[in-house]
């Protein structure tokens, strides 16, 4: 079965959840609040905006959407978050786009959504891979043949995977005092953002938890956002099995903000995955900063932090904000003496997973992120903080400012680095 199989893709958009999302259409009062927040339509007339392609065009949709500017939606999810009436605008638009692309899914979109594959292929030859991706003539060929923009941010391959580190490191000397957690590292956290995973695990162990890291694969988010619902569904259910194997009823922690969002709600609400394994994982998973803030609210987070004198820009990614828990990292950072975290106040960095990689969308993604890049450079030219991987790569590439997960400062403030 291939994604070119249009019958299959259409079937896939007839599931119950599609009907549930469409039922929310009647709540739309055409107030335009989503339009005021959309980061894409703000910078280009090529996208007519979430209300126009969503609640408006959706009424005329029978199979394919009548508004093809839908392809320019980045699926950042901001419209759903800000809707005062509870309309699932982003979900509707993601579903409509999957139908629209079903007959002619670009090879490029299939390739860039295979995140684990990229990591596995690049790690053993990291220096070569990094050099190759930094080599302009090669990137121009890739742009021409595949459609990935020559200047788009690419992850840096590491010589050691997280699994490699876990195998080689010394076992924690302190016996756990708070029970066990399962850690979900995501593809990026396993291959590219290994340091984020290491620091997250070390902070959790410092707090007294035993951290179980089961063998795990991709959540399928990039496939979902590219409309490859079949493959993404198979991926996420495989991942759920793997995470469940880590321990029954244990809290699952992740520092991959967008993959966490995929597990918490997107797989269910966008792709209609209705499976008890997903329901089990989605109710147990917590973003690491969310988890630390919950501990603090319960009076269980040690705050014997070292002073770190730093003013640092913090950008909350769209897919983290979409989880409806505010910006927990901001609250945790406030607990560290000396840290002055400045919220970016910018809706989106532009990358939206794989959107900003695509040659026809690269300029739009850069324009979306420009106010953020400017803010980051003006606030601290040496360090920025952001919870998700592709957003960090985008900010770092376009602003030139090193960008890390907020757990870095927590790790440092506990004296672990």
């Amino acid at each position: 079965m291939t994604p070119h199989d249009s019958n299959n893709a259409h079937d896939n958009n007839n599931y119950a959840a599609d009907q549930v999302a469409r039922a929310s259409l009647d709540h739309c009062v055409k107030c335009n609040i989503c339009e005021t927040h959309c980061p894409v339509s703000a910078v280009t007339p090529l996208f007519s905006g979430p209300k126009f392609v969503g609640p408006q065009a959706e009424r005329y949709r029978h199979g394919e959407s009548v508004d093809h500017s839908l392809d320019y939606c980045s699926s950042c999810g901001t419209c759903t978050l800000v809707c005062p009436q509870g309309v699932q605008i982003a979900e509707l638009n993601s579903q409509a786009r999957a139908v629209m692309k079903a007959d002619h899914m670009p090879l490029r979109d299939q390739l860039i959504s295979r995140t684990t594959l990229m990591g596995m292929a690049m790690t053993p030859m990291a220096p070569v891979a990094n050099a190759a991706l930094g080599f302009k003539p090669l990137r121009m060929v890739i742009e021409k043949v595949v459609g990935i923009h020559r200047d788009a941010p690419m992850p840096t391959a590491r010589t050691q995977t997280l699994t490699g580190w876990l195998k080689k490191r010394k076992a924690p000397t302190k016996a756990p005092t708070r029970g066990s957690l399962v850690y979900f590292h995501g593809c990026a956290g396993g291959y590219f953002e290994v340091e984020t995973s290491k620091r997250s695990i070390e902070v959790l162990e410092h707090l007294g938890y035993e951290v179980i890291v089961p063998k795990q694969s991709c959540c399928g988010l990039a496939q979902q956002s590219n409309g490859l619902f079949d493959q993404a569904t198979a991926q996420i259910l495989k991942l759920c099995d793997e995470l469940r194997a880590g321990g029954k009823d244990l809290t699952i922690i992740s520092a991959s903000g967008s993959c966490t969002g995929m597990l918490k709600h997107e797989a269910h609400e966008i792709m209609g995955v209705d499976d008890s394994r997903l329901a089990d994982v989605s109710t147990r998973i917590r973003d690491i900063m969310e988890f630390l803030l919950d501990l603090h609210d319960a009076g269980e987070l040690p705050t014997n932090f070292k002073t770190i004198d730093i003013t640092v820009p913090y950008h909350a990614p769209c897919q983290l904000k979409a989880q409806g828990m505010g910006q927990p990292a901001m609250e945790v950072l406030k607990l560290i003496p000396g840290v002055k975290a400045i919220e970016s106040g910018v809706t989106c960095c532009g990358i939206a997973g794989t959107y900003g990689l695509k040659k026809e969308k690269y300029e739009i993604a850069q324009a979306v992120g420009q106010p953020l890049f400017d803010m980051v450079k003006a606030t601290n030219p040496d360090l920025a903080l952001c919870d998700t991987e592709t957003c960090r790569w985008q900010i770092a590439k376009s602003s030139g400012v090193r960008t890390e997960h907020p757990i870095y400062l927590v790790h440092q403030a506990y004296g672990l680095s």
Partner: protein
Amino acid sequence: MSRVVVIGAGLAGLVAATRLAQGGARVVLVTKGTGGLPLSQGTIDILGYAPERVTRPLDALAGFAAANPGHPYNLLDADAVRLGVAYLRELAGPEVFVGDPEVNLQLPTAVGAIRPSAVVPAEMAAGACVDGARFLITGPGQLKDFHPQLIAENLARTQLPEGGRLAARWAQLDFPARPGESDSTGLTFARSLDDPAYRRRFAAAVRALVQPGETVGLPAVLGVSDASVLTDLTAQIGAPVFTIPLPPPSVPGVRLNNQLTAAAKAAGVRIIPGAKVIDHRSSNGRLLSVISATAGTPREYAADYFVQATGGFESGALHLDSHNVVHETVFGLPLVGADITELVHGDYWGPPQPLFKVGVGVDASMKVDGPYDNLYAVGGILAGATRWQEKSGEGIAVASAVRAADAVLAAIAATDQTPARDDATQGAQA
């Protein structure tokens, strides 16, 4: 430090949350989505019709309240409104508003009617409809919902509320917001006008139309992020400029929402969007927590006090079921004014519809008449007002928000012992 949960991010919710945080409370604001400000005209209406047109709203307040038992202005007098408006102006910043809560301006609308409002964005002040005024109404033909001819001709044929007439003519500009775009919203134009180069070209196009002695009426699209658009355009056009608010997305409303949200965050309010309240816990007549629908699993927000700023029907906080029964959807609170058989009468242009006066009842401190001792209500959920008809929405919102916040802070001070006072002092300084 005492914890307060505010539900709702409209004008009343943002003002109450900010005042509470500045007073030392630890405030979480949960909201389903963005509040109603981007739908508003950005003006502070106190009392426009009682039911006849009002020229001095605060002078008229007591008489209006007496004639309307159950109206929030029976609990919130002129001083409460003065306090609320002054606090709002402080939060928004000194340059944002002009006008005087004591006096209504009479301002043109997008259909060329004349609307009373007291405290208005600085860019609207020169639009006061007074005898002998000479207006040129102009705007881009590529802007949705702005029709200079309709506005100018309606204004010119209207006997002004305070007597006399004004002269108004119109001209349409051919001036897209972005190349090739033929029907942009006001927000797109506002973003373009944030750009000084676009602004220069726009000013030159307007300047070519103006005759000596005219005041220029433009659509309310004078920038989202750049505060200098009004002064810059006025200087470049070489004539006084005012704006006429448009249907949503409303640029002055978006700006006010941005300013008040920033003020709330600066005061330390933790804002949680995408968090519809779906449940709550209570014990012995006190609310303990509210529970929000959140991705993955519901989240619980415990607090010592709760402020409900959910709005009414327009935001789903009130719901009329098919049996003609009105429900308050967040806590299931008892409602005032719902025990009427004909909630909606058939006379469309007639007296206020009873349905829209339904809401929760409160005491003078804005504490809800209901099962919980620690729940306060502010803004559009309060019973007794037909806000859009009276033009009273913002006056009620800011006065009730300040009253409730101060009542909660007083209750905290009364019950807390000395350690909490230290916390409060620190919070106020932050």
